[in-house]
């Protein structure tokens, strides 16, 4: 397995209500060991996965959302958010968490890899991906 592929994890569901978001995150975490070129895309209710200040203390659900902040350390290079999905829900980038990334070999740093993209970019990014995991 020497070849590196462009992986895209497409997240379309709200963080709670169904298990898709959480089990998708588990794939991202495990997949990090395979050193692929990894991006995440958040569309539709999936944009809620990146919302700031989540609190599940009264719902008896494990709050896994802080894990998204660590994804830079798991080799995720880009976290794209569909602009139209954000706007349809009255959200802006200010409502979203920030995720830092650092290349430990080159010391290249990016303060925030969460990037809002328009529909055309969403289509291009998905088309350019070699593997799309859809959740």
């Amino acid at each position: 397995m020497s070849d590196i592929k462009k992986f895209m994890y497409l997240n379309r569901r709200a963080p709670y209500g169904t298990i898709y978001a959480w089990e998708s995150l588990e794939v991202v975490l495990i997949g990090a060991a395979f050193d692929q070129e990894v991006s995440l895309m958040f569309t539709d209710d999936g944009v809620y996965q990146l919302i700031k200040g989540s609190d599940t203390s009264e719902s008896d659900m494990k709050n896994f959302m802080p894990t998204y902040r660590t994804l830079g350390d798991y080799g995720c290079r880009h976290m794209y958010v569909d602009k139209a999905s954000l706007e349809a829900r009255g959200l802006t980038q200010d409502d979203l968490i920030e995720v830092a990334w650092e290349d430990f070999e080159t010391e290249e740093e990016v303060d925030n890899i969460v990037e809002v993209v328009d529909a055309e970019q969403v289509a291009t990014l998905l088309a350019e991906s070699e593997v799309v995991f859809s959740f």
Partner: protein
Amino acid sequence: MKLAVQVNEGPYQHQATDSAYHFTKAALEKGHEVFRVFFYHDGVNNGTRLTTPPQDDRNIVNRWVELAEKYDLDLVLCVAAAQRRGLVDDGEAERNGKDATNIAPQFRISGLGQLIEAAIQSDRLVVFGD
């Protein structure tokens, strides 16, 4: 072409598992290689041998088993998803102190790395679900 198939939904509840089966069968009959079928989320319920559908309905689990027997197909249930949903083989029963197993023949339980590996090794990953 070398294909990997991911099944994200349970049998009978959702058409995804039927579509995945027919796609996989058609691909194999056309001479394509299916590197692995990986069952995730409620899709792991495709792998219980205790399924008993009405006699005039399709038996989704047995259908997978027969396809695997014919084509030496690798059917893998995600271990984390299987543990949550009570899919148990001998190894899992021993590790987790369970008093029974329910995995169907031809299926095996393994980690998410098997999905990643299948995606890397195959020309296409085809996902069935909502």
